[in-house]
C-alpha cells in the first residue's frame, strides 16, 4: 500500500494536515451533539398526548364581574356547547394536556402525610363527560358517573373517593399488580380508590427528550372545578372543527355578553406552542450543523486543490514512471481518509467529552453512541466527496509535465 509514502509526504506538510484533522474533529463533535439534541426534541414533539387531537379545540372563558352562581353559569355554558351541531362533547376543566400550566401533586401509597410521595402527578378535574370530551381510551375499569362529581373551588381542601390514572402512572405506582381497585392517597388522608385506567394522557407540560415517563403521570379526579376563569374543551365530529370553532363565540355570547373569550385555538395550535422552543432550537441546531458540514467540505476542497497544485510536478513524475490515473486518484483518497480518519477519532473523543461536560454542567441529556457513529460516517463520506474533484484534477496531470521545465 501507499501509506508510507503518504505519511512521509504529510510530514512535510504537517500544519495543513493538523488543521484539517482539528477541523474535522470539531465538526464531528458539534454535529454529533447537535443531532442528539435534535433527535431528543423530535422524540418529545412526536409523542401523542392521548386525546383526540385532530378534533379538539379549547378556549379560556371568564365572566366580567363574578356571576351570582358560578357553577350554574358553567353548566349553562356547557349545555349550550354540547347542544351545538357537530359537537361530540364538551367539558370545563382546570387544565388539559400541553396547556402549559396546571396542578402538580404528590401521590402517596400510605395515609401518613409526612411519608414521602410515591410519584408526582398532574391533577385534572373532570366531570362525567371528561372521557368523551377528550376522547381518551379507557383500558381498565370505568370513568366517573355524574352522581360522583363534586364541586371544587380554588381554595378548597377537598378529598375525593375515587380517581382514574394513566397506565404509565399506574405502572409506576403498582409495578407488580393491576392498579384497578388499589388505594392511593393525595391531598388529604382519605383513601382514594383507583376506579379506572386510561391508556395515555400527557401532563400539561411538554415532554423532555426520549422516554420521559413522567410526561404521562396524570390523574383524573371526579371534581367540577368552579372558578371565574375556566378552560373549555370541545370535541367535534371529524371535519367539523373549523366550523364549530367559528360558531362558538357567538353561541357563548348568546348566553351572556358579560364574558371574555380568550385563547380560542385548535389543539394543533396548543401543541405547536407547547413545543415552540424545541422546534426553534432544532432549526437553529440543524442549520448550524448543515453550515458546518458545508464549510468543512468546502475547506477540504480548497486545501486539497492547493496540495494538488503544489505537487503537480511530482504527480507528473509518478505518471511518467508508470503510475496509472487510478493510482493518483487512490493516493489522494487514501491521504484524505488518513487525515479524516484521525480527525474522526479525535472528534469521537471530543464529542463524547463535550457531551459529558454539558450533561454535568448544563443538564442536557447524555448522547447515545449511535449519533457519534453516524456523525463520524457523515464526516468521512463528506471528506471523500470533497476530494473527488481535486483528485480528478490531479489524475489529469499529463506525464509529460515531468519532462518540462527541468
Amino acid at each position: 500500500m501507499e501509506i508510507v509514502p503518504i505519511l512521509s509526504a504529510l510530514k512535510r506538510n504537517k500544519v495543513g494536515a493538523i488543521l484539517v484533522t482539528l477541523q474535522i474533529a470539531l465538526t464531528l463533535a458539534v454535529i454529533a451533539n447537535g443531532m442528539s439534541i435534535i433527535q431528543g426534541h423530535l422524540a418529545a414533539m412526536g409523542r401523542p398526548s392521548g386525546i383526540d387531537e385532530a378534533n379538539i379545540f379549547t378556549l379560556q372563558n371568564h365572566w366580567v364581574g363574578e356571576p351570582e352562581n358560578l357553577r350554574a353559569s358553567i353548566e349553562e355554558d356547557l349545555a349550550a356547547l354540547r347542544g351545538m351541531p357537530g359537537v361530540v362533547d364538551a367539558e370545563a376543566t382546570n387544565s388539559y394536556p400541553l396547556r402549559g400550566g396546571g396542578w402538580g401533586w404528590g401521590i402517596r401509597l400510605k395515609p401518613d402525610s409526612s411519608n414521602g410521595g410515591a410519584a408526582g402527578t398532574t391533577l385534572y378535574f373532570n366531570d362525567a363527560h371528561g372521557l368523551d370530551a377528550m376522547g381518551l381510551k379507557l383500558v381498565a375499569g370505568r370513568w366517573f358517573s355524574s352522581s360522583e362529581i363534586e364541586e371544587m373551588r380554588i381554595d378548597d381542601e377537598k378529598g375525593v373517593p375515587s380517581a382514574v390514572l394513566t397506565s404509565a402512572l399506574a405502572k409506576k405506582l403498582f409495578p407488580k399488580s393491576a392498579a384497578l381497585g388499589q388505594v392511593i392517597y393525595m391531598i388529604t388522608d382519605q383513601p382514594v380508590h383507583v376506579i379506572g385506567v386510561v391508556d395515555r394522557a400527557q401532563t400539561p407540560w411538554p415532554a423532555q427528550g426520549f422516554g420521559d415517563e413522567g410526561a404521562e403521570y396524570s390523574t383524573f379526579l371526579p371534581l367540577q372545578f368552579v372558578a371565574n376563569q375556566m378552560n373549555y374543551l370541545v370535541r367535534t365530529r371529524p371535519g367539523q372543527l373549523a366550523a364549530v370553532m367559528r360558531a362558538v363565540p357567538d353561541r357563548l355570547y348568546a348566553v351572556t355578553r358579560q364574558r371574555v373569550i380568550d385563547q380560542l385555538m385548535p389543539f394543533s395550535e396548543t401543541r405547536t406552542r407547547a413545543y415552540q422552543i424545541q422546534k426553534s432550537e432544532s432549526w437553529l441546531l440543524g442549520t448550524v450543523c448543515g453550515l458546518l458540514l458545508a464549510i468543512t467540505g468546502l475547506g477540504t476542497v480548497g486545501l486539497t486543490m492547493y496540495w494538488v497544485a503544489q505537487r503537480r510536478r511530482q504527480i507528473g513524475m509518478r505518471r511518467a514512471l508508470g503510475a496509472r490515473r487510478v493510482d493518483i486518484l487512490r493516493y489522494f483518497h487514501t491521504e484524505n481518509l488518513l487525515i479524516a480518519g484521525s480527525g474522526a477519532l479525535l472528534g469521537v473523543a471530543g464529542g463524547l467529552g463535550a457531551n459529558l461536560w454539558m450533561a454535568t454542567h448544563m443538564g442536557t441529556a447524555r448522547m447515545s453512541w449511535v449519533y457519534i457513529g453516524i456523525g463520524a460516517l457523515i464526516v468521512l463520506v463528506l471528506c471523500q466527496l470533497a476530494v473527488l474533484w481535486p483528485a480528478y484534477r490531479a489524475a489529469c496531470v499529463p506525464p509529460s509535465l515531468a519532462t518540462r521545465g527541468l
Partner: protein
Amino acid sequence: MLGYYLHLALRTLRRNVILTSLIIAAVGVGIGAYMTILTVLIAMSGDPIPDRSDTLFVPQIDVWGPNTRPKGGTGEIRLPPQFTYRDVTAFMQAHSAPHQAAMYPVALDVTPPKGIAFSQVGRATHRDFFSMFEVPFAAGAAWSVQDETDRADVVVLGKTLAGKLFPNSSAVGQTVSLGGRLYRITGVLEAWSPTPRFYDVVNGNAFSEVEDFFIPFTTAIGHQMQTNGNYNCAVLPSSGWAGRLSSECIWFGFWAELPNATAVRNYRQYLLNYSAEQRRLGRFHWPPLVQLSNVHQWLSLMHVIPDEVRVNSLLAFGFLTVCLVNAVGLMLARFSARASEFGVRRALGATRTDIFLQCLTETAVVGVLGGMLGLALTALGLAANRASLGYLAQYVGGLMRLDPAVMALTVALAVGATLCSGLYPTWRATRVQPALQLKAQ
C-alpha cells in the same frame, strides 16, 4: 506604504478568486452564526436598570424550613423565591428600608367604553414601585399614600392600554372598568420595558413586556384578587380567602431600596431578627437563614438566562472555531502559492517586516469583507430565528435586534479573528528564502 499594501491586497483578491471567496465565506458564516446567537445572549445579559442595580435588593427568608429543600443539593441553598402575605405585610409595616414594595401579578377584564371586554394582565404593588424602579410617567403620577390606606380603586395605566382606551383624550382623571369595578386613573406611563423584566422573573417569562396597568396592593387584597402567577404551598392552606392570607403559601414578590452598605447590613439584621422572632413565636422551627440579592445577583440566582442559550453560544463558538481553523488552512494555501512573489520582493530588498505588513493588510481586508458578509448573515439569522419562534416572538423577539453596538462588535470580531488566524500563515510567508524561490523560477 499602507496605501500601497491596500492596493496590492485588492489586486491579489481578484487574482485568486476561489480561494479568497472560500476564506471570506468561512469567516463570514462563522461570524454570522456566532453573532446570531451572541446577540440573544448579550440582550439577555444586559443591565435592566443600570443606575440602581446595586442598590435594589430582593430579600429572602426561610419560610418553609430545611425539610422542604431537596436533599443532597449542590451546596447552593435555594430559599423560597417569593413571600407569604403575612411576611410582606410585616416588612411593609416595619419600614426598615427607605423605599420598598410588595407585588404580584393580577389578571382583570377591561371593559372599554365601546366594544367587547378583554382580559389584561396587570400588577398590584405599592406606590414606591414607580420611584424605586424609575418608571417614567407621561402624565399624572402614582396614587397617594392615602389611596393605599383607603384601598381606593385607583389605577396607573401603561402607554399601550391608555392609548387603546382613550385614543383622543387624556386618560388621567377618567375612569376605567376593571374586573367590573370603576377605577380612577391617576397616571399614565411612558413606554417602559426593562430587559429582562427584573422586578418579576418568577412569574411568567422574564423577557416579556411590562404589565399594562398597576393598582394598589392593598386594593387588590381588599378585592380578594388571586395571583395570575405562581402560588406555591408547603402545607395546604385552610379554606377561603382568609385561609389564603394566613397561609404559608408564597405568591408575592418584594423589593427594597438600600442605598449603601450600612443600610444593607441593617436590613440583613432586620431580616435575621424577624426570622428569630417568628421562631420564638413558634412559627419557624429552624434557625434563621436570610439572603439579600441585588439585581445582578438576583438575576443570576434565578437562572434568568436559560441554559439552552448558554449551550447554544458554546456550540456557536465551536462553530466559529471550525470556520477559523478552516480559514487558517486556506490562508496557508493562499500565501504558500505566492511564495515566489514574496521571494522576488525579498530579493528586491523588502524586509521581513514589509512582507509581514503586506500579508497582514491583505488579511485585514479579507476580515473586513468577511465581517460584512457576517453582518448580513447575522441579520438574516436573527430574522430566521425570530420567525422560528412563532407566537413566542412577541415576548422575546425584542432580544433579536441588530443594534449599532452589536454591528460594530460583529465587524471588529471578524477582523480580529481573521487577523489572529492569519498570524501563522503570515509568519510562514516571511520565512520565504529569496534565493530558493528565485532559483525555482
